């Protein structure tokens, strides 16, 4: 075993030329060959790369898809997003545990199958879904699980377990995935016809300053959800001093319920890459990085192939887009399972091969980003829109949407509606109009912007989807009339507890406290005082946390307390000034069992 570890580690580390910034890739490849990265493997990686052991352990323990203990020859990661739960996840999970013979969080005794929960994998329109050794399985049910576990026990290759393929490029030889695009509504920006090479050619015919000016005219704001003006970001980056500049694409859509980037990456990757090249031209970069979430590993070969095609067509490479002296290429950096890496400075840390912990800001990435150089980090959809703006003009773009929110927005709709999928809608569309489009008229509530967004009820269905009203990075989850809203909130809070990076106390401890308080209320032990505490703790976590995660993580509770207070009121004990969940007899059971004694509870003094 020892020599095997040495051989594997040496091989992998050499393949990446001992490059510190490739540590995530190194850990992934070592784990792929050894089944895990145990202490010995971590020590050898550290020694052979001349980095500290803590750096390696830090990476191995930070990311969800890395493990110090074996994850099984077949590692099943079953999505636990709220939409999966709505669509029968519990039964699917039970089938897995019954048939595989181990619980979630465990590996079977023979090391064949490992079962794990995982946060939203970007398949909310086709749940319950799972990743098995990186291959996506959608719309799972008890029958499908039976056949999958049978195949695993028979030693079948995971790729061969996929029988049906989805639509569009999901069928292409390099993807061959059962994922469906579910494009329900095409619009003029993202899914309109696009001739590869044309946008970059139009861009390089102008000066970089003019390209930035065009973006400013368009009024485009970041599509990830925060809505920072893209033209301004590119200008800051261009003007920042640095020996090099970088363009980074944030393809780490981890907000539960969003999957629109998955569809762009599948159906419009050339538009995206061209948008990145335009970004490179505008800010003065010669390298771009696509940071692709680990969940979308199944698209990697396909995307590499698209990049190769663009190099052959000289859209990428030396004299890109036919512009003499403009050299630009793009590399793909895989993530490893961490929601926090959607935060741009955490993403940069991760792309550099470190734990994905947010940086202190300032300095902002536009001043001090990837590898310490000025970097513009933009969303997948933003680059696509930028390419289209160069083709069609800033005024054209600005003519759509609202004054503060120009253009269209891709939204990923899932949950209790007849037509889940991706919709390109104009900014300013009301929730009600969207509900009619997706055939989700019976909705009791709509979660706009994912768990970190806002939960609105019927009285607010007239509100508009745009930055100045209901902002969203793309996630829209419809909650039907028969759903227990507190169960939905609970699912969201469990997500944030799991995904908090742990760096700052308000987020690390605060989300735990919020979750426990919510559970106390759900269990019927809440009081008026607990509701007041929930409200004030939400404010503390939001105002004291270091990055966007903790600044928005209390939103599931805060927005439902605001819009659905009656749901909480119905659960609490009216008039009681205090209640406890503490059960003395239950809490001493384990220690008495271990010590071999029978609990003897005395009466109070």
């Amino acid at each position: 075993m020892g020599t095997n570890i040495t051989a594997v580690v040496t091989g992998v580390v050499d393949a990446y030329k001992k490059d510190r910034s490739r540590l995530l890739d190194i850990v992934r490849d070592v784990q792929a060959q050894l089944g895990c990265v145990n202490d010995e493997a971590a020590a050898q990686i550290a020694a052979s790369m001349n980095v500290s052991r803590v750096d390696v352990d830090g990476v191995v323990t930070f990311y969800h898809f890395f493990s110090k203990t074996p994850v099984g020859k077949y590692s099943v990661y079953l999505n636990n997003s709220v939409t999966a739960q709505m669509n029968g996840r519990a039964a699917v999970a039970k089938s897995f545990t019954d048939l595989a013979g181990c619980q979630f969080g465990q590996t079977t005794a023979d090391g064949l199958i490992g079962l794990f929960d995982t946060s939203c994998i970007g398949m909310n329109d086709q749940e319950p879904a799972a990743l098995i050794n990186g291959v996506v399985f959608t719309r799972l049910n008890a029958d499908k699980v039976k056949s999958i576990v049978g195949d695993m026990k028979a030693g079948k290759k995971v790729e061969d377990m996929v029988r049906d393929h989805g639509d569009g490029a999901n069928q292409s030889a390099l993807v061959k995935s059962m994922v469906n695009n579910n494009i329900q509504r095409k619009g003029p920006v993202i899914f309109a016809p696009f001739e590869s090479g044309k946008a970059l050619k139009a861009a390089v015919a102008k000066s970089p300053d003019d390209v930035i000016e065009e973006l400013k005219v368009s009024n485009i704001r970041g599509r990830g959800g925060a809505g920072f003006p893209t033209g301004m970001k590119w200008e800051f980056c261009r003007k920042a001093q640095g020996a090099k500049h970088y363009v980074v694409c944030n393809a780490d859509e981890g907000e539960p319920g969003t999957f629109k980037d998955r569809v762009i990456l599948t159906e419009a990757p050339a538009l995206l890459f061209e948008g990145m090249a335009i970004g490179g031209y505008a800010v003065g970069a010669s390298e771009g990085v696509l940071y692709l979430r680990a969940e979308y590993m199944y698209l990697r070969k396909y995307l590499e192939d698209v990049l190769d095609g663009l190099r052959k067509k000289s859209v990428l490479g030396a004299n890109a887009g036919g512009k003499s002296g403009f050299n630009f290429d793009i590399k793909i950096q895989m993530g490893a399972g961490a929601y926090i890496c959607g935060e741009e400075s955490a993403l940069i840390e991760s792309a550099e091969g470190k734990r994905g912990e947010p940086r202190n800001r300032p300095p902002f990435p536009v001043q001090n980003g990837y590898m310490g150089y000025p970097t513009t980090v933009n969303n997948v959809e933003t680059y696509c829109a930028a390419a289209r703006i160069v083709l069609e003009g800033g005024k054209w773009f600005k003519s759509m949407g609202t004054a503060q929110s120009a253009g269209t927005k891709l939204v990923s709709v899932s949950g209790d509606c007849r037509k889940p999928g991706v919709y390109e809608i104009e900014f300013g569309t009301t929730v009600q109009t969207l509900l009619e489009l997706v055939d989700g008229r019976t909705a009791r509530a709509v979660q706009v912007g994912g768990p970190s967004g806002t939960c609105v009820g019927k009285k607010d269905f007239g509100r508009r989807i745009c930055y100045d009203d209901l902002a969203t990075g793309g996630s829209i989850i419809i909650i039907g009339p028969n759903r227990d809203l507190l169960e939905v909130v609970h699912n969201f809070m469990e997500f944030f507890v799991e995904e908090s990076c742990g760096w700052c106390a308000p987020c690390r401890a605060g989300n735990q406290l919020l979750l426990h308080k919510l559970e106390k209320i759900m269990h019927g032990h809440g009081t008026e005082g607990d509701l007041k505490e929930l409200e004030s703790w939400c404010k503390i976590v939001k105002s004291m946390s270091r990055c966007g995660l903790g600044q928005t993580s209390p939103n599931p509770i805060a927005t439902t307390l605001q819009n659905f207070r009656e749901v909480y009121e119905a659960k609490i004990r009216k008039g009681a000034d205090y209640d406890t969940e503490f059960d003395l007899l239950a809490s001493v059971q384990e220690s008495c069992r271990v010590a071999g004694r029978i609990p003897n509870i005395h009466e109070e003094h």
Partner: protein
Amino acid sequence: MSKPIVATASLAGCFGCHMSILDIDERILTLIDLVEFNKSPIDDIKKFTKMCDIGIIEGGCCNSENVENLRAFRKNCKILISCGECAIMGGLPAMRNGIPVKECLEEAYLKSPTVDDTIIPNDDELPMILDRVYPLHEIVKIDYYLPGCPPRADLIWEALVALLNNKPLSLPYEVVKFD
């Protein structure tokens, strides 16, 4: 009018908060004039002999005796104060909360290099260990919290004086900053 009655206890704490109470120095003479002590390590009264006005508790709850004690305080004190980090958050003892009880007991009584016992103590007279260390407010209603490790003597003094005089406690920035 009779003097207000104060009771104190240290549960899963280190008595550091009680040391901090003593740190009020010569003001302790004033305190004796102001209040009467009942159940407390300060006068060594073991059981409540009358209803008290103020109960001050240091330490969280790590075993069944702590819980019984705490409940007795709640029953016999009109106002209950959670005093110090352990009472409020569990503190240092709560570091075991991430470790299964079985592992803790085995480490303490079977595997530790300094023990040669072969059993985990199981006498019926011994308090039973809880599954985790609890802050006080998760078990009974707490009226006031005095943070710190330990809370500074001045804070304890000022809180008591404010309470006895029915006046709001002055909390300048220096008192609530922790770094």
